[in-house]
């Protein structure tokens, strides 16, 4: 089963914000869709793109994203299950890992198809033609999700957090969380994150609350750690308000000794939005290849000491929206950016040298400007 069980038809750009080499390109393929079901796949991609655009908010600039659909025709409809083998191109299988809802695809076939059809791809998702209440997988950097009507798009977004942006899971492991027994226990004891593992490389979990990697997002009045799990054999039963960046114990499949930045996030509970820290990281990833990122926010970066601070990113997003091809006010914004490119570095140096000036600029100019930019960007 595999590539002999279908045909790659080609690619279609479904979200086009400009040249692919200057955008972050998401490739979405389908598996288990026959020739007569291609329209079903196209609708599924459209639905997911709408969901994703709504879901990527805050500093995430949708104008930096292109989405490309990879149309693949499978010989048979559906997905392999424990009772039936189905001939599909990416060999999607439901029931992998001895879990009824474990969903896998052949990642070698997926990566080969992506490289051959669209070399500029930055992340790849495979939507599998099943409406089963199915799980998902990220294997080798390619995410997969089902078309389950209520959770499919949310699962796909979570998987994109892994395969597209390198985000870690923020949930505990399930043992001791009213879910004892079964394959979830087979990970072994994961009560406390081991010291010997060191700091995770992922941006949204940390084992070191004394040098928080997201400290620039934390309000000085927020207690660190923000929550502490008193029983490391169990999920922490405490519930905190969403939207406060701090250090919440329990993440990365462990109950203790590892912290996440907010109480909730897509990387913890799939139906919720990304948290502030994840949004900022996603916004940063999207700027890697962006032609629009021609001038950094020198002054704001110097004043905050962090070019990924939410205020800095809000201002960048506002600027980039107005620099996008076809946007109103683009000529004026280009002039403004050119002028800022001349005086910005000088002002940034001054603000960096004189902390009082930096604080004054932050309070009286940049914070209000960022708040206005957020309102203009569509998020308070």
């Amino acid at each position, binding site marked *: 089963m595999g590539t002999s069980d279908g045909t790659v038809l080609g690619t279609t750009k479904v979200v086009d914000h400009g040249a692919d080499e200057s955008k972050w390109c998401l490739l979405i393929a389908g598996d288990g869709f026959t020739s007569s079901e291609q329209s079903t796949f196209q609708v599924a991609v459209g639905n997911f793109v709408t969901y994703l655009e709504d879901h990527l908010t805050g500093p995430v600039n949708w104008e930096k994203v292109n989405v490309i659909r990879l149309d693949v025709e499978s010989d048979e409809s559906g997905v392999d299950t424990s009772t039936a083998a189905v001939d599909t191109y990416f060999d999607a299988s439901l029931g992998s890992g001895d879990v009824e809802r474990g969903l896998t695809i052949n990642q070698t076939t997926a990566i080969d198809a992506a490289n051959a059809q669209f070399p500029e791809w930055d992340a790849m998702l495979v939507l599998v033609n099943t409406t089963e209440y199915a799980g998902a997988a990220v294997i080798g950097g390619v995410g997969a999700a089902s078309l389950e009507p209520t959770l499919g798009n949310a699962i796909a977004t979570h998987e994109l957090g892994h395969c597209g942006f390198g985000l870690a899971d923020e949930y505990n492991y399930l043992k001791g969380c009213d879910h004892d027994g079964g394959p979830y226990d087979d990970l072994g004891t994961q009560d406390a994150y081991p010291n010997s593992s060191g700091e995770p*490389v992922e941006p949204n979990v940390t084992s070191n609350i004394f040098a928080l990697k997201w400290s620039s997002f934390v309000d000085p009045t927020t207690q660190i750690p923000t929550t502490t799990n008193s029983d490391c054999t169990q999920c922490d039963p405490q519930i905190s308000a969403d939207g406060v960046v701090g250090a919440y114990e329990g993440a990365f499949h462990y109950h203790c000794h590892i912290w996440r930045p907010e109480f909730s996030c897509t990387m913890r509970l799939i139906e919720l939005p990304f948290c502030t820290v994840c949004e900022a990281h996603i916004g940063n990833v999207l700027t890697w290849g962006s032609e629009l990122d021609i001038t950094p926010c020198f002054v704001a970066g110097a004043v905050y000491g962090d070019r990924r601070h939410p205020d800095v990113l809000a201002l960048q997003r506002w600027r980039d929206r107005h620099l996008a091809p076809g946007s109103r006010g683009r000529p004026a914004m280009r002039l403004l950016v050119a002028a800022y490119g001349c005086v910005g570095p000088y002002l940034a140096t001054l603000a960096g040298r004189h902390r009082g000036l930096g604080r004054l600029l932050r309070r009286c100019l940049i914070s209000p400007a960022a708040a206005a930019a957020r309102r203009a960007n569509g998020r308070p």
Partner: protein
Amino acid sequence: MEPRSLRLTFRFDDRGLRLFSRTPRRSPAPPSEALTEPPPRAITLELRSRTGEVRYRRFLVDPIPQTLETVDDQRRLGRVPFAPLTGSFSAVVVVPEPGDVVVVSAGPAVRFAQPGLQPAPGPRAWRELLVTSAERP
């Protein structure tokens, strides 16, 4: 148009890890991670010069799966053991300089269930899973 980056695609099986393909791209590569000592549970992809100097580094997140993510009856995400014996992963790097080598390494806290990727006997330390030319053979 000269490529601005390369996508390196790797395959693993019971014989270990190998570089399968180099795909030129017009898009730029992500910036390098810091070239200081990486944490023990990291898996790194590096470009090193002829003299062994690390020129560019990326952290690879879960390139060789050890678990499978699933959703339970209560819509909660969870992980179960799952370690396919063969597979692929890929990552984008800057265009290598002549003579550069590609090195994939795993930190001492990294465990693989795949037999072809088991570390050699002895004290656990950083181990190089692959060292190969960055240029086309």
